[in-house]
């Protein structure tokens, strides 16, 4: 697997350095420990949002740092959650006194590291709330397991909660908005190929020319099951149906439809998936009012996609439409 990198162990740092150079107008990159903070942080009186997780999912999370979304992002090593000694200074750097929301994808590593960081930050006098994102319907939820993963829906949580913070919501209110997005979004993904972690050098899994993995996460881990290759319309139905069913969305309701690329799939193919997903939702009497199509929560160069559906109401639409200015998502300003 060829990669446009230098030293496999320098991938995250060098990439962040380039990211910081390219987006110096809106953010600053700190090294040792690594974290990214928006320009002008802390924003007086505003609740701050911090997210983070393993690298390899770019533009998540650093690409969403800026006005109207995250105040800081904390990137770990590739596919490895960041550590408290990164999360704590990021939290401190953005707290204006109004408190900080940690948006955490539900993985054991992320949960544990953010837990420690939150505890220690609280001890330093910062009010921290944690919102766990667990939108992946491929994983059966149960008290006895690690629970569902946080995947594509995370972007929607970050955008909408970020807008609530700009609106002036209190710490509890921003947390509540984020939680309501989590409750109303579901996702499912498919891989046509594995991906190669730079330090590993071999693909996370191998698929034959006629196989695909259904129900993958975003760390190159294998999915729930492997099935023979199907056409785009068939795959779309396989992803969308469990999402719709689990969300319990139906006739007369409004939705945001998000087709997310895993990194190595051409945009044109994502639109083929979007087309069918929009048709299927239409057939169910669900109105697609907003859409997002592109590579937002990736697994390095994996080929495949995920489909997320977010149930909308007037408030969520308003917060979604609110201005945002980050490296990867921008409108209204």
């Amino acid at each position, binding site marked *: 697997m060829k990669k446009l990198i230098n030293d496999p162990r320098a991938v995250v740092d060098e990439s962040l350095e380039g990211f910081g150079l390219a987006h110096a107008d809106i953010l600053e990159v700190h090294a040792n420990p690594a974290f990214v903070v928006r320009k002008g942080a802390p924003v007086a009186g505003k609740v701050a949002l911090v997210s983070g997780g393993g690298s390899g999912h770019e533009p998540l999370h650093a690409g969403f740092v800026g006005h109207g979304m995250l105040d800081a992002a904390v990137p770990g*090593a590739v596919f490895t959650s960041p550590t408290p000694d990164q999360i704590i200074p990021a939290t401190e750097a953005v707290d204006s006194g109004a408190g900080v929301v940690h948006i955490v994808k539900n993985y054991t590593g992320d949960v*544990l590291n953010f837990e420690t960081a939150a505890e220690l930050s609280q001890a330093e006098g910062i009010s921290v709330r944690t919102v766990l994102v667990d939108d992946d319907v491929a994983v059966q939820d149960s008290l006895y397991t690690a629970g569902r993963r946080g995947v594509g829906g995370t972007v929607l949580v970050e955008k909408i909660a970020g807008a609530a913070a700009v609106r002036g919501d209190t710490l509890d209110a921003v947390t509540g908005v984020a939680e309501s997005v989590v409750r109303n979004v579901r996702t499912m993904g498919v891989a046509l190929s594995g991906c190669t*972690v730079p330090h590993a050098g071999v693909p996370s899994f191998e698929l034959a020319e006629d196989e695909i993995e259904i129900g993958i*996460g975003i760390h190159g881990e*294998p999915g*729930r099951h492997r099935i023979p290759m199907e056409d785009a319309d068939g795959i779309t139905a396989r992803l969308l149906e469990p999402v719709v069913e689990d969300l319990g969305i139906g006739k007369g309701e409004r939705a945001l439809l998000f087709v997310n690329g895993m990194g190595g799939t051409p945009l044109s193919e994502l639109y083929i998936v979007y087309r069918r997903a929009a048709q299927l939702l239409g057939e169910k009497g669900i109105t697609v009012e907003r859409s997002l199509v592109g590579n937002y929560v990736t697994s390095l160069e994996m080929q495949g996609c995920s489909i997320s559906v977010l149930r909308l109401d007037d408030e969520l639409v308003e917060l979604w439409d609110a201005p945002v200015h980050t490296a990867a998502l921008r409108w209204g300003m």
Partner: protein
Amino acid sequence: MTVGLGVDWAIEWLQLSARKMSEHRVELIELDRAIGDSDHGENMDRGFKAVLEKIAEAAPDTPGAALKLAAMALMSKVGGAAGPLYGTAYLRASTALGLLEDVDAAALAAALEAARDGIVARGKAEPGDKTMVDAWTPAVEAANEAVALGADAVAVLAAAAEAAEVGAVTTDPLIARKGRASYLGERSAGHRDPGAVSTALLLRAAATAAGFPDGEQA
């Protein structure tokens, strides 16, 4: 004359751990690739390299201090699930050892138990969930048994290492219920848990550092 294991043992243990993590880096990555995300070996290697640096910076003067140093380095450099879990384990073990300069069999077994309890408290895994707990739990049991039978500190560590190694093997058929492997459901069966293997390696290093002959080294 001391009757137990002192700070030299603790430092030797951590240094040997670093060597083992580096030597088994690819193996641990491969295990994690099968049912996880291909990073466990990389994480542990990076973490114990940081432990080495910490030790070089400020030589600890008790076993407890050495383990505390290790705990802080692991927490801040490993990340993922293993970082906080091992960090907690080493921290709890350090606390259990307190300011002891010489660690005897009983103190060692108690420290191992504190470590295991810390992991369970943070990670909520039970034996059989296919995690490092499946190596730690038999290790703690074997250590306690050895103490009851009057073994010395070296023998306690040897018993713990042996039990952890067996424990790691027993994870093979299990279906994971915690950690990243749980997402695979039944597909996780037939693979060994990487964290259980790293636990066995670390406990083996503890025994070797204490002077117990190591099969792998010989």
